[in-house]
């Protein structure tokens, strides 16, 4: 196939630093190959900007295969763009048409302060995990791995939640900038898995408290988070989190 090259018009958020003013800047990218990924189109644009003596656009990416959770762009209002179950690094230009105009912005949430252009600080997610997203088992103290059989269905269900890549698209999509899907996914993973059982009460209270302390908003069941999640984590994670939370609070009042 000799693929026809496309021209794509972009409006990209440019902001020099956290306290600097930002604006949408227009760019025209010619010669876009439909097999390019969205980020490769940005690479191409950046190379041209450098040669023209302009500053390239800063954006995060690393694995470029949808697993590290680094990439983070809102395209025409949708985190990671229009395709379900896809991080922006896995989005290919064949899904766009010659002449399309696309607006590209960073994740926006108070709890994710902007660093530069499309790059934000997602350290709040680490702090939520540090509050309780783990099993307290020191290295070297574990029993034989097969000493505790785990029902396959439970293990598979736990995996579905453990697949979260921590990219923050759920927060960016939520009108309240809530981190409930992210936090709920970790709580669901560890409460469905027997190894997480002993700490389940302590964990959910600590993580939910930290989530609030970081300034994420409340969940009001919009469901936008599930729709944009590149790993299609089910919103049932949030229900599990709520249930676990209520149980834990009741238990601590006993």
């Amino acid at each position, binding site marked *: 196939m000799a693929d026809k090259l496309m021209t794509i018009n972009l409006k990209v958020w440019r902001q020099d630093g956290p306290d600097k003013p930002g604006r949408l800047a227009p760019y025209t990218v010619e010669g876009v190959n439909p097999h*390019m990924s969205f980020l490769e189109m940005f*690479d*191409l644009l950046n190379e041209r900007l450098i*040669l023209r003596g302009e500053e390239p656009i800063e954006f995060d990416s690393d694995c470029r295969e949808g697993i590290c*959770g*680094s990439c983070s762009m809102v395209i025409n209002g949708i985190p990671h763009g229009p395709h379900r179950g896809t991080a922006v690094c896995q989005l290919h230009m064949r899904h766009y048409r010659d002449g399309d105009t696309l607006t590209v912005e960073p994740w926006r949430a108070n709890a994710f302060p902007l660093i530069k252009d499309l790059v934000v600080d997602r350290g709040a997610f680490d702090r939520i995990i540090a509050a309780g997203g*783990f099993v307290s088992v020191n290295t*070297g103290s574990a029993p034989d791995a*097969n000493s505790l059989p785990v029902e396959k269905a439970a293990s598979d269900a736990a995996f579905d939640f453990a697949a979260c890549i921590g990219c923050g698209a759920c927060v960016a999509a939520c009108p309240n900038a809530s981190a409930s899907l992210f936090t709920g996914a970790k709580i669901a993973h560890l409460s469905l898995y027997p190894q*997480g059982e002993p700490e389940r009460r302590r964990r959910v209270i600590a993580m939910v408290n930290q989530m609030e302390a970081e300034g994420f908003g409340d969940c009001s069941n919009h469901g936008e988070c599930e729709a944009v999640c590149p790993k299609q984590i089910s919103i049932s994670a949030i229900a599990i989190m709520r249930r676990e939370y209520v149980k834990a609070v009741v238990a601590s009042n006993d």
Partner: protein
Amino acid sequence: MTSSTMNNSPRLDSKVPAGPLQQKWENYLNTAKLVNPNNKRKHTILVVGTGLAGASAAATLAELGYNVRSFCIQDSARRAHSIAAQGGINAAKNYPGDGDSVWRLFYDTIKGGDYRSREANVHRLAEISNNIIDQCVAQGVPFAREYGGLLSNRSFGGAQVSRTFYARGQTGQQLLLGAYQAMERMVGAGRVKQYDRREMLDLVVVDGRARGIIVRNLATGELERHVGDAVLLCTGGYGNVYYLSTNAKNSNVTAAWRCHKRGAFFANPCFTQIHPTCIPVSGDYQSKLTLMSESLRNDGRVWVPKTAGDRRSPEQIPEDERDYYLERKYPSFGNLVPRDVASRNAKEMADHGKGVGETGMAVYLDFAESINRLGEKVISERYGNLFEMYEKITGDNPYKVPMRIYPAVHYTMGGLWVDYELMSTVPGLFVLGEANFSDHGANRLGASALMQGLSDGYFVISHTLGNYIANTSLPKVDESNAAFADAENDSRERLATLLGIKGEKTPVHFHRELGKIMWDDVGMARNRDGLNHAISAIGSLREEFWNNLRVPGSNDTMNKNLEFAGRVADFMELGELMARDALEREESCGGHFREEYQTEDGEALRNDDEFTFVAAWEHTGRVGDEVKHREELVFENVKLTQRSYK
């Protein structure tokens, strides 16, 4: 010290403990000195890197009471390159009861590495493998399970037993999240301090010992000094020297290379692994290559058309006109031959005009037979996310059409030289995970990098670091020490130089050019002329780089092009050393295939009489003037044979 021979460099004491192979590690543990628990918190340990090796080390050392600082380039420790590992992790549990044992895992790894690794290290790795699985399961890592609730295993290249544990196609992700969570727990407990978006630019050596690092804060551009009693380098491999590889975009050699320049010897740089099953290159805009896990070779069959130039689409090629060349040439291992063998054979098919796809630089990996036998559901349970990933990238559905695959650079067996304690030639500088050279010889078997990273980080370093700290007097050093000021100045000047050239070509341009040279001349097959050509071509490229580079922007803000420019500069120096190392290793072994040295069947021909050693290169001031030291490899437990997978 045991087993030194006449040729062994006095600078390379492997410190392999005495005693029979099976007891060396135990003997070591029984005699290693311990640090008093109350004293541990007085020791600050700098852990650079948060992949499997770094995160597991940071967590474990903090649990033991050390005061840990952890550094990574990404905005979160959880994003380290290990996250992308797909296929699985080996262990000698023998849960399937198919005859596996610590000895067999050891033997397969030594043989798979084509007898270019240290027996004692590999045996320790095999011994520890089982503890890793226990640890990870206890952390809640959701490994695949059977209906009875027990853990499931599959087989991987280079082995005839099923010893690979996996978590769908996301094993690295789940293992890394386990280690990351263990580390975050210690962050919460105040024993690990986490420094994200930091790039280590230099090692600070005080009185001959590693005592600190210089890092650049990648969000602000500030340079920072960090002091410690030891530095653990867990910074991953250098596959990106080829520009296109399966490594993450930020994977680099800079930290290791800066340490090399401060006295750490670089071992076997030419030992790189080209992975046989990657999605082929589709265009010159391509920024990285995507691996399709080797586990696919369990159920996928590799083939090409029998006739060169057959351009029919795969479904139009009848069974008897297909060449399942791995099954034909290697009946006992078939599609599961080790990576180097599989890769070279794919290249050979393409060289003979039998390659498929638009570019002819691909072979088929076909699941039709397995889908018929097992059903689509089983295949999707095993490989669902890989199939999806393939479809997203290529637009083809592998349930219907065979995948097209081709080899790509994937892993680097070479790395900083370390002794049995994982300490480099700079006292106090330890190197873990892919960044060291230690366990995989000239070729790594599938599913053993994750094993090695976690073995180093969870189970080895806590003992060997303790032994170092307990045996060493470490006078107080602080950031005002002149060595810190000097190292910081060097970094500052270097950044200023890169920004000041103001030439016409971007860092990516130079990286691509370097990658082309490396792939053509220091790639899957190498020869004398090509290697000499690479050395001179890289020399010219370096010269052009320092005269014609253009880095936009400034140093006092986030500037990814500045970061990349520094990494490309180091890659160019490393690339030259790789070519020299490959040139001087006049034999073929594992992933290092010298066309001049092959058997009649075209297999790698080792020269054990002359090359059973580790080549460890010392930096002496100028690139091109490195001095080679030899660590002779002594095999007391296995017999060196010509590898055969027939």
